[in-house]
């Protein structure tokens, strides 16, 4: 099986800081993969190693089967990276920037695709503007466009939506989703968890340079202990029931359920006490709940 990205026991130290402590990760071709984790977890470090911008101290990484150090030319030809830092070359216009980037990848007559990328990212009317004169969000779009000039089979986006308005977020995700449908593998880091939840089919969570969760998004959501029940009654809940359920701002209670079967164990005492129910809602956990649970140190083992 050829993986789009395959990282094996990757370690990286910066002085006394262990930025990556043995990361194993395999992204399959065609996946939309999320790489999540708090600030300093090591996401950018891992991406830099995949991109060949940083050398791992130990372990190896392959892109489409090509070693990023030994076979760096083929590995890089297959990879497009949108860096986290908002960088640009103040000497050139948007179109010049994209032409030059194409040339670096060996593409001379790339005008049609450059136009299409600019169009899709809302850059068309800025084509002949110097990158120095663009707003932050526009510069971010240029960075995305630069990563795509050579139509790389594997696209890695390091927080592409940081500081970006709603409109671009939507345009960007539409465009990236289209590329994914066309067969491109996408790896994404973001701190907007709802974005990751709706886009990514599989997610790895990194903490302190280690993978602490790695599963299909659907499984991760299921893995979180059950669901939540939001309940508001007229009058007071029986003390035994109210105990251990956090009271919400609106006067309701939030019960954590191990499974849907537990709904009954909450409702039975309410019925027995003859209380009138004003609000009732079963909430499934979202990725943020899972993220918080994983990061707070819950066991990292996968449940099978």
């Amino acid at each position, binding site marked *: 099986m050829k993986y789009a990205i395959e990282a094996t026991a990757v370690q990286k130290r910066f002085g006394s800081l262990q930025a990556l402590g043995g990361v194993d990760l395999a992204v399959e071709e065609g996946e939309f993969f999320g790489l999540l984790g708090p600030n300093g977890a090591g996401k950018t470090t891992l991406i830099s190693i995949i*991109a*060949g*911008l*940083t*050398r791992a101290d130990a372990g190896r990484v392959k892109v489409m089967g090509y070693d990023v150090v030994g076979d*760096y*030319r*083929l590995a*890089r*030809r297959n*990879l497009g*990276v949108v*860096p986290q*830092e908002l*960088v*640009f*070359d*103040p*000497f*050139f216009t948007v179109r010049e920037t994209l032409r*030059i*980037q*194409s*040339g*670096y*990848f*060996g*593409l*001379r007559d790339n005008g049609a695709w450059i136009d299409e990328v600019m169009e899709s990212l809302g850059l068309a009317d800025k084509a002949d503007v110097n990158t120095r004169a663009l707003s932050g969000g526009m510069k971010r779009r240029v960075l995305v466009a*630069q990563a795509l000039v*050579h139509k790389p089979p594997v696209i890695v986006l390091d927080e592409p939506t940081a500081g970006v308005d709603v409109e671009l977020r939507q345009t960007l995700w539409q465009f990236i989703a289209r590329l994914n449908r066309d067969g491109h593998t996408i790896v994404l880091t973001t701190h907007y968890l709802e974005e990751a939840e709706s886009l990514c089919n599989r997610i790895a969570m990194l903490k302190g340079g280690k993978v602490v969760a790695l599963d299909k998004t659907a499984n991760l959501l299921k893995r979180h202990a059950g669901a939540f029940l939001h309940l508001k009654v007229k009058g007071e809940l029986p003390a035994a029931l109210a105990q251990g359920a956090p009271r919400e701002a609106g006067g309701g209670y939030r019960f954590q359920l191990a499974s849907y079967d537990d709904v009954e164990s909450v409702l039975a005492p309410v019925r027995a006490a003859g209380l009138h129910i004003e609000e009732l809602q079963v909430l499934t956990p979202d990725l943020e709940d899972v993220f918080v649970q994983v990061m707070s140190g819950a066991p990292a083992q996968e449940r099978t």
Partner: protein
Amino acid sequence: MSRAATSEVGSGFRTLLYKELLRFWKVSAQTVTAPVLTAVLYLLIFSHALQGRVEVYPGINYTAFLIPGLVMMSVLQNAFANSSSSLIQSKITGNLVFVLLPPISHIEFFGAYVIAAVVRGLAVGLGVLLVTLLFTVPPVVAPLWGLAFAVLGSGLMGAVGLFAGIWAEKFDHIAAFQNFFILPATFLSGVFYSIHSLPPTWQVISRFNPFFYMIDGFRYGFFGVSDVSPWVSLAVVGGSFVALSLAIVELLKRGYKLRH
């Protein structure tokens, strides 16, 4: 299959070279016109002060003697400035990633920066030469020697600049390199005098200065006279260039300071 690969190899190099040339050409007032002006000021001041008082080579007036040295000094300093400033700027602004992400080989990377430095050096040198011709026209006895030293010297200084750019972490480091190494070495290389006019100790010290050979060899192209044989100078400059180039390509291969 292999043909496609070859054409791709060329493209990364060509594009990087084109980008490097465009970079200095877009600001040619700073990168070409200003250094030409500086060199002409040197010529005016030194020839005014020393013309008629000093005759370095018999039958050659001092202003004529000065021209090749000033031209070569400009060539060398600007070749160094081009690769070092381009690289440190890209490093500090972070846009070096655009060059580090594509499949550009170490040799292509080296070649593009050094050749752009040679072009800038020669452009400035030619500018200085043309302007100084307004003052006096020196003889040109062996133009091929002159050209060989201009190209090889600017290649060497382009490589030195590339090394400085790789090593430096901020602009101050480049400035220090320039002020403590490049500038003293050029001034003590015989731009303004022949080393035969120096005390014996200084003559010996000058022989360890690579700039001395570059200037002396270049001047041979004009007057057919030099302090040491041009072949010796050619060997020193060429040897230094090859040794430094190999070292830099090895550093690039290891990712020294660029892919840490």
